[in-house]
Structure formats: C-alpha cells, structure tokens
C-alpha cells in the first residue's frame, strides 16, 4: 500500500497518526542511516543504537517536519546530530573506551576468513587505522566522506541532503581525502 507513495506523502500520513507509514520510511532508509552511523562512529553497536535513536527522534518530531526540505535530508540531519551526541558522550568517558578498542578490532579481524595469519593481522591493523583516521576528521568533512563511501551518494545527492552548494560538497570531499591520505601515510604498513 505504501510502496508507491513518495517519502513526503508517507510523512503526511505519519503526521495524521498512521504509524505504518512511518514504518515504511524506516524500511526505506534504515540501511543508509545505519551505514551513515557506522561510518561516523566506527562501531557496530554504537551505530545500531544511534540509528535507532535517530528514527525514534524523527518519529517524535515528525509533526515539526518542514515540507520544504527532503525527507532524506531531514533523516540524515537527525542521524548526524545523534552521532555527534554519541561522540560527545564518548569524549566525556574516554577512559572507558580505551579497553574496548582492542576487543572491537579483534572482532573485526575475525571477519576475514582468507589469507595467512600475518596478512589478516596486517589487514586488521590497517582497517583499525583507517577507522581512526576517518574518526579524527572534522565533523563536516567526515559526514561528506561517509555519505560518499558508505551510502554511495552522488555529489548532487549529498549537496541536496546537506543543503549545501555542489562546489562546497566537492571541496569538502577533496579536503577530506587529502587529510585522510596524510594521516594514513604515517602507517607502518602499505595502504593499498
């Protein structure tokens, strides 16, 4: 019933107290929002919780949704804000996460079943450093590169979602890739 409707129509129905319409919005965007949260936070559990909170916040504030913005922009903005909130909390209790880092990485290493133990270890180390390098980027650069690489959005889609000029999006992405290259060059292992 809802599959033929556009996002904006679904939002209208959800505002009129139709939770099923909002369920359809969640089904459409859950993978992308989850990817965005994963790219922004770097951890599965945190990404899952952040995405869940983002959808809950979206549902709570659906009556305040302005029709002049796209639903995708609105959801992305809520998700990015949620990720920033999580990051702030992480900073405030940074000590707790120091012990968890290695555990999270070890889970990531096991995910690759092929290759020698040495290669697996090197790959794991590389992925860990990439994650840290992405996480160290400024927020406005990080969200652009995550939307590009994790959500595979075009420059124009990113510009629409973030409500930015196309040139600004390209500039930010270029800067993000350059900064990432500089950080990754410090790696002891070969990047590619």
């Amino acid at each position: 019933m809802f599959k033929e409707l556009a996002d904006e129509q679904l939002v209208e129905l959800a505002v009129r107290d139709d939770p099923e319409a909002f369920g359809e919005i969640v089904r459409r965007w859950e993978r992308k929002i989850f990817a965005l949260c994963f790219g922004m936070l770097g951890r599965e559990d945190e990404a899952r919780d952040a995405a869940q909170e983002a959808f809950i916040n979206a549902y709570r504030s659906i009556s305040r949704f302005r029709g002049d913005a796209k639903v995708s922009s609105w959801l992305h903005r809520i998700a990015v804000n949620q990720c920033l909130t999580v990051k702030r909390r992480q900073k405030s209790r940074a000590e707790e996460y120091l012990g968890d880092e290695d555990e999270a990485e070890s889970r990531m290493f096991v995910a690759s079943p092929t290759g020698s133990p040495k290669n697996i270890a090197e790959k794991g180390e590389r992925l860990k450093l990439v994650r840290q390098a992405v996480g160290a980027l400024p927020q406005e650069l990080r969200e652009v590169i995550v939307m590009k690489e994790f959500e595979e959005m075009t420059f124009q889609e990113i510009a629409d979602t973030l409500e930015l000029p196309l040139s600004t999006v390209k500039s930010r992405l270029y800067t993000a890739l350059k900064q990432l290259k500089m950080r990754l060059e410090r790696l002891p292992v070969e990047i590619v």
Partner: protein
Amino acid sequence: MTQDKNKKAECGYAGQALDFVYDEMAADATAAFGGHLAACTNCADEVSSLSASSLAVQEWRSEAFDPLATPRFTIPVVTEKRASFLAGILGLFRQPLYAASAAGLLLASAVGIYILVNAGAARPNVERAAVSASPAAATPAPSIETPKPAIPDDDVEEVLAAKEDKTENPVAAERRARTRMIKRDKPLRQSNDDTHSGTVATNEPGAKTVPEDLFGEVPETRDRSLRLTDLFAEGEED
C-alpha cells in the same frame, strides 16, 4: 611549490580529478581526462592520492560494514487511545516506582471513605431515635442523672440508729433498710428537685419527655423524700 601551482593552473583539467575518481563525469569527459592523465603527471598524482584514500575507506566499509545485517529498528508508538479508569488504576501497579504510592493512596482513600460513611451514618441514627420516640415505644436512653430512690422515714430512723451505733456497719444497715422497703412494695416518692420533676433526662438533645405516670409512679403531691446527704447533714448537726 609555486611551480606545482603554476603547472596545475596551466592544466585545463584542474579540479576534475575528484569527479574522475568517483566516476561522476560524462562518458566523453572521462575519456578525455583519461587521455590527459598519460601526459600530465600532476593530475596523475592527484588521482593516485585521492584514489588511495578513497580505496582505504572502501576497504574498511567492505570488510567491516557490508557483512553486517541491517538491524531491526522498532519505534515505540504511543497511541492516543484513552484507557479505561480501571485500566489506568491497574496500569499504576505495573510501574514499580508508583506501585507503593498508588497502594498507599488507595488505602488512605479507603480509610477516608470508611470514616466519612461511619460519621454520616451515626448522625442520622440520633435524629431517627429522637423522631421515632413515642409514648408507646418509649425506651429511654441511658439517663445521665437517675433519681435516687427515696427512703421511708422509719427506714431513715433505722439508718440513723445504725450510724449512731458504731458497732454496726452503716452501709449494711442502709442496704437492709432498702431491702425491707422493696419487700413492702411501697411506691417510690418523687424528689422535689426541679431537675427531676416529671422528666427523664437523656443524653439526646430535644428528646421527648416521658411522663412518670406511665410507670405508675406516685403523684407529685406526696413527694416528701429525703436525700441521704440531707440525712447525713442532719446527723452531723445533731
């Protein structure tokens, strides 16, 4: 450094490396830029640098994120349905925090209602008793002041004699005199005291008076009774 900038400025493809890396160029523009890369080392370096970063992030995504299943997100929906009063009360007990306070509130309400009901029930009973009092069904409420039975003159003399006689117990003498009086079935005399004349005092305000004639009492004219206290007073004067 300045030389590099000049070279980039001279290159007509400056700024297109990003579009090329992400394949967001038109087909003919992509082919033209590909041909230019073979001749322009600056653009080739730029593409290599951007690609390396991009591929590193893509590898991270493909290894860490792509294998993950999309979590099932559940949104708690609050419906505006109005719950019944009983359901609301029961709902309070489902909240562990409110359970104790709700129970206390209910208990206090129950006690309050019990007190109110009892207080309301007691008052009408009094009025009902006062209204329904009729001469036929007169069962006087417990009187506050009950007139003491009068003692005949000869019995008084006997009591006084017993009092003078220190050997006999005055209380026993009085009891004996009263017993004799009952045996003789002599009618009781009524007191001259105004508070006792013709009425029975009750604790009910405005209760109807009951004439003593109903109980076959002696007429007022023969009332010559004495109080024990008067007798004792006389004895002391003597």
